[in-house]
């Protein structure tokens, strides 16, 4: 297969911070989901952040600044990667419970993007179960978080919002336009690169 029919999507960024009122000691797991035509060429598509406590100020933020760095290769924009973040935390009884699920597409335009993802958790199916779940610390969780990245099967769930999570993405693309996918406005796509910049031009080495 010739290399020409592949484009690359490089995603850097951070899981920066989150707001979960009334909770503390939160950590995140993230994973990327993508369609069948996508391939991870480098980087991790799953990860786990450190545990963070909320800031002791008015903002009550949870800050991770957890780096994301992944590069995809694909032939088809269908199944564009999505970032699924699920946060967990310790509850009053010391058990590890889920604090929120959130999902967002990786931005489709190159550049820096800051995305605020609303986080939600599935609701218990009955009040009694809600109580027992609270007591036992076993809240309803998604069997497979990848459900979040697709439409199928979501209709059976009921969820409640929990907070927000801020993710920043730095997206770099290669060859996308070459293959006919134009995601950037034309005035942006033709940027002028000064000629003097480059490895050959610079560099008078001083003694």
């Amino acid at each position, binding site marked *: *297969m*010739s290399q*020409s*029919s*592949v484009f690359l999507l490089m995603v850097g960024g951070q899981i920066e911070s989150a707001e979960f009122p009334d909770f503390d000691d939160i950590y995140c797991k993230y994973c990327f989901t993508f369609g*069948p*035509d*996508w*391939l991870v060429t*480098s*980087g*991790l598509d*799953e*990860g*786990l952040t450190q545990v963070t406590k909320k800031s002791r100020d008015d903002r009550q933020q949870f800050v991770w600044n957890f780096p994301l760095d992944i590069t995809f290769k*694909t*032939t*088809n924009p*269908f199944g564009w990667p999505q970032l699924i973040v699920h946060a967990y935390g310790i509850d009053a009884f010391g058990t590890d419970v889920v604090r929120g699920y959130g999902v967002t597409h990786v931005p489709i335009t190159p550049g820096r993007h800051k995305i605020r993802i609303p986080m939600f958790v*599935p609701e*218990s*199916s*009955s009040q*009694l*179960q809600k109580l*027992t*779940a609270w007591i*036992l610390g*076993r809240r*309803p*969780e*998604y*069997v*497979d978080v990848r*459900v979040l990245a697709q439409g*199928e*099967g*979501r209709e*059976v*769930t009921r969820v409640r919002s929990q907070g927000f999570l801020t993710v920043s993405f730095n997206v770099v693309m290669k060859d996308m336009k070459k*293959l006919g996918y134009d995601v950037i406005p034309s005035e942006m796509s033709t940027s002028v690169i000064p000629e003097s910049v480059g490895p050959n031009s610079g560099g008078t080495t001083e003694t």
Partner: protein
Amino acid sequence: MADKKKKTKRLIENEEDEEAGVTNPSMDEEAEAAQHQSGGESSVEQVDETHEAESLIKDLKTKHLSKQKELSKVKSPKEDLAKELRTIKQQSRDKVDETIRQEEAELSATEDGTVPMPTEEEELGESQPTDSIVTFAETTTELETEEAVVKKLKRKKEKVEEEEVLPLKDEDEETTKKEEAPPPPETVPPPQEEPPKPPPQEDVKTPRGLKASMKARLRKAKEEAAAEAEQEQKEEEKKERQLKRDKDKKKTRFDQPEVDEAELEEKTRAFKSRLKKKQPLEEKFRMELKSKGVFMPTAEEAFDFFTHDFEPEPEEPKPEVEEKEEEEKEEEEEKKEGEEEEGEEGEGEEDKKKKKEKEEDEVPLMEDVDEEGYGFYAVRKAEYDDTPETAKKEAEKLYYPSVTSVNAEEKAKILHDKQPRFLEDEGFYVGTRPKISGWNVNKMENRLIKELHREKWFGEDGRMIVLPNPLRPTPSRPPIPEEQEPGLEVQYRKAIMHEFDSRYIDGSLDNAGYYQLDVDINSLSFSHHHLFSREHVLATRLSQLYEEYMDRQKKNMAEYLSEKLKALKLSAVHLKDHMAAKKSEHNYADRSNFQKRLQDYKDEIRRARALRDKEEKTDRLLLKAIIKTWKDIKQQREKQKFINTPLKLQVITEETNKEFDLTQWKLEIEDELEEMEEEATEIYNRKKTEYEEALKKHAEQVKAKEDARVRIHKRSRKQSTKGSRASLGSKASKHSAENEPNPEEEAKDQEILNEPEIEIPDKPEEFNKEQARKDIIAKAKEIRRRPGEPKLYPEVTSTQPITEASKCPRGEQQRRNDVSKCEMFLKVLFNNKEVSRTSSKPLTQEFKLNFGQIFSLKIVQWPESITYQVYETSGFGGEIICEINSSIPDSSVTSQSVQLENLDFSSDHRVNHGHEGVGSGVPFSFGAKNEGTETLYTTGELRCSVAWAINDQGELLVPPSTQEQGNMFYAMRKMDPVTAIGAAGVVDIQKLAKWFEDSRLDPNDPANADLVYMLKSKGGESALLGPKEFFRLEQLQEEFNFCDDEAIDENKRFRLIYLRDSEVTEFKNYKMIPLLDRDIPRDTFAEYEKKKREEEKYKEEKDIESHRAAVSKFMQRVREQVIRRFRLLAHQRRLEDVINEEAVPNIALLGTSVLKLTERRRPLRVERKERKKVVPQTIDNVKILININRAVYVPRRVAASRGGAMTAREPDKAVKNIVGETQVQPFIEVMFQDVFLHTEVGDGPNPSYNEELEMPFKAPNEDYTPGNLQTVTDNIYLNLFDQVLIDIQEDDRQRGTTVHQRIEKKWLGGLTIPFSTVYFNGKIDGTFKLNKPPVLLGYTQGPDEEEGTSLRSNEENTYLSVFMTIEPPLQPPEPMRERFATTEDEKLLQYADNWEKTLNAKFSDREYKTTVIDVNGKTVFVTRYFKALEPPPDIFGSSDTEVKKMEVVARYVSMIPSVSDSVVFPGLCDIWSTCDQFLQMMAGDEEEHAVLLANYFLYMKKITWLIIGKGIPEGPTAYVMTEQENDYWIWNAGTGEHFSYRDSYCPLQSISCLINAENIWANVQQYEKPAQMNFDLSQGASWRSFFTRSFPNTGIASYQPERLYYKPTNKNAVLDLQEKIETLLKNKIMEWRSRLITRWNRHCTQIMRKLLPVLEENLGHSPGEQHLAELESTFSAYKVSGFPINMPYNEINPIVDAVFSTRVHAHDTSDVEFALAVYIHPYPNDVLSVWVYVASLIRSR
């Protein structure tokens, strides 16, 4: 550069001078002198060096400065020493001055060569005064070197340091050992400073002989001394270290040398003074410079360094740094003394030190980096660490900055040894530092000090650079700018009305004219209302009738028609008379004209009469109805005993003259009769003429026929008598002659005869006058007033007094009450907007409301509709009764000319009342009369009018019609031409088309475009104008299709995507579909298309194999159908599929879990931990772990010495086992996906392996999702081989020295486990019976006869203990929990659910089955699968006993190939096909086999059950159980074997339920192993039956077919197949051993051929002895090893695989011969048992 530096140097010097308060002019001089000198010598090098040196000096000076500053500030015990120091400094300065002077004098006597001072120091340091003295003596006597000067200087310096620090140190030791602030001086420094010096000497200075020898000597001595010193010092230090081990390392380190140094210092002091004098200053200076230039420690120095530095961590950078800093400090102190040389010296040294330090600093650093920082970048998955590990890791990654203040040396270093400079003191403004706690400052400083560019964080004062406190003491707000952002400014704009709206009459509101509609709402009256009483109903009816009557009366049609009749009659008579009178005058035309007129009159009269009769009849009926209704009312009033309505009927009778009436009556009748008669006569006459005519014709015909008949008769007679009567009269002959040539006539006659007879019409009846009269009278009686009967004129008045409410019964009172409560009002809606409403008026008892209100509506919009809504309120709230639409008045209708009109309305409102009110929309009856019920809806009339108003000036307030263009209709016309044309057009579009054509509109006129479009059909021609017969739902869909379907089909990529999306098996997991068409491999679709084509051409063939292929295709089709059906279901998710939620725990579970807490811990009890199932996608490198424990009862070799073929026969005669002789050397080979692994070779018949083999597993398409994995059909083959070593030594002479052997593998048995079994069960653990060939040549089975035990049945078989699992554990597919469509009774299913649930609660690991899924995806109750079915009759053959028969049947069933359901129906594991489907598909799971076998047994009248349980290796499976006398036999339907239930080697491990046609029995016993169970099904404690007395089996019909039809197997085809397989196998074997020659032994093959059918007959058991004997005797000259393999036939490939896996071919020699025989035993219905006999023969030597 040099100049610059010089300048700076000057500056610094000045500064220094100022600072130190000491001036030393000699320094400058010297420097200059040095410069001059070098310049004079014009040595470029020197110049350069000088420059360099100068620059360095300068640097140092600056450092000194800062250091001094700092030092002055340092608060430490040092301060105490300050005075002392100063005095010492002063002294030393003096000394130095002196020395310099001396040196100057001795300048000429310069000498080269250096004495490496360190050695001396070292030696001296080692407390060996004598040595050192000697060395120094040498130095002094033999050479006065510059170096010596240096040394001397150094010494001096050290001395100073010593003096300075010693007391300090003591203090330190005593007090705070940790505190480093007062740094203990001079520890390592000597080694550090010295090494740099020598190299320049060697490199730069030309080595002279003297120097060289000197050096050598020195080195030697030094080395010796060093060695000694080392020794001693070590000892010493050991002791000391021992003491100070727990102390700080730095301490230990510094302490030790200090002591040495102190001693040394004292000892050398004397020398120094001597030496000093001789040092030539210039030389020394130059030396300095040079040494600075290049730096390279020599070996000795390095050695020295290391020998001295034998501290535990000599290379730790930090202490050195500190040391260095300490030195620096010391040097500073020296400088303070003002000695220039020293200073420079110090600088030089310091410089070197710095370099050194850099080196030392860097090296370890770099290493560190390499090790941890920038090494190979490893990508790892995120891991969760538990706490201790995390802590450890944290310790690596994290550090806690100390809160203690940064020690002074560090700071000093940062300041580059400059004096701290306090800007504030110098008068600069620095601002106030923010208040920060000391700890935090310290922490920050500690943190910063660790950083690379730490200098920049610290200011000149040695403190952190801190911005002034930005906070103001007072709170403030930022100023808010007055002017707003221009972008955010708000501007006021006037609201803009939308100008043009076609709905406004004048386009907009502004210039509207004054248009007004007057709506007059007069009154509302109900003809029925739900509060009507019965009387009301009748009264209304009466009044309606009366009204009608009055209406008719007014018109008086009867009278009018009578008059008309009279007139007509008169004119008819008149005409008749006229005709009669002037008959002659008139010509024919006139006559006929008159006649016609007369006829017209008559017709007219008749018509008029009919009309009159009708009218009269209606009148009369009406009258009757009125009277009847009145009677009803009266009756009703009587009945209810009150009067509700004022209605009263009075009938005015008018007496009539009976005579007159009678005559009138008679006249009338006569008149009519006459008329009738006349008419009747006319008809009669006409008919009669017709009749007569017909009669006449008939007669003629009869006659003609008669004639014809006669003629024919005659003719015939004539012909017969022709000859005889030839001589008859001429007339006759003439006649005959006439007749003869007339055959046409004859035909004509015949025709006449054949003519149908003319029917004679009925004779017309004569007018029956009497009858007619009677009829007329009867009619007249019915419709007319009889003679003498008075004329009746009904008159309805409203005069009847109404009974007062108080006198009425309760129901009526309630009704009246309700009526009076009921109020009504109307809303007027203009263009569907309410514009006004009338006041609410109470409903009168007469159900009339008088509004009398006129609403003037000023309108601005075109009127579209005017609607009235009638509301009824009783109590609260209004209820809309109905809506009445009024027409919009024509512009000519004005309020002056308008008439009130009645608008009828009705409502489908349903009201029911409990009282007298009859309600609305509900049936009621009038009670007593039993005349049925009536249902009336609320109806009524509204009197109202709508008209255009006229204003005071008499102007009509109608919108101008010229505005027509802008009105609503115009707009509508634009949209819809039909509307524009009007209602007529809408009704019939055809008519419209016609009209369009008729009116000849120009189809090209754009004004008509809509219409043309509307009518245009596809033809487009005006002739074809007609309505479209379709409409489009999504007209724009096409616009959005970015290409059409063909394009998608043609485009490979789109097609691929499409197929993938629809989850076609081949493409389901296709990854990375290329973007471009050309990148898609051409053969992508080849397979898919081939499959498609094959599916299409499905044809019956005789060949068995192709039949199989057809069957497999059929299966494929069924499978795909099923998959498609369930794909939908699979995509429907339920909450449980998506969300993992804890179920509400029940109390019992809680209890047990609480109990678990209190349970005693049993650490020694081993329990297998549940492994976590891995979610796919992250999986790679999957392995199958196969743990082979041991094998038992492996067949033993029959000793080779016996020669000939060795068989299992005569075990007792087997050669005795000599101890040590190998019986057998078995090993296990595992084959999976073409990978072979094998265990070590074991020894003896019961080898123990305990080996774990890791078998790599590759899923197709690398897709490890359950959906894909369950379609894997690969098998794991475990084969037991005997490893035989064969001596192939050719030359006996070498036997003593060389071993030359060949290893051969002999297959002893095998086991095949499908991957799916391992996958579904997660693990397989147990002891398995190996499939062993019935005949194994060369091996014997069973115990050694020496052991003397008798051969037991289980010892005939070989068993293998194996544990198998997949690593990492793969997620098994989720069973379908979806409820499938079913035809079963809902109650039954519910009961079944409950039954299963209760049982599962108790025994969660037992599988209870009540329903299964059939091939159509329907849920079927399981007992339906049982029914006695006849096995194929011709399989029994010679078998006579019952057991034998059963075995035969079992064998037949076992020969049907077995395929896992999961392979057939992926995603659905439990599909049961019926027996006929099973036989048709020729493939099925254990259930199908078992069901079929059970059904056969049922037919054989055995008591049979199906067992649902767990077996090995299948996991959940189905077996069959039959009851034999005193025993239960368990049949494995897949293999045809049977076991007693007591047999512990039975592969069935557990039984969860038994099923047969009658019932299901669940095992509720404690044990589930068959041997431990009780099979008395009647015991409720052991078996819980499904159907019980409370829920009896109501006879569930079987799902199986009536009987099975077996098609005979084509014998020839079987033979062909046999041939085919044999050829193929032979070719394959030759192919496998392509390296070697393969010979075939025909003779052997033939014998085998004979043997195979016998084996089949024995049902795979070992044949009789004689067969083997035959085989044996034949091959006495050979070593034969071989065996038959038996398997059901499905495809050829498994057979090839099986043969391959036995490795018979693997004889690595050409000496071997092979024999291969294939036999296929055909059973009915294409069930084939394939036997392959393979053997290898090696000629014995």
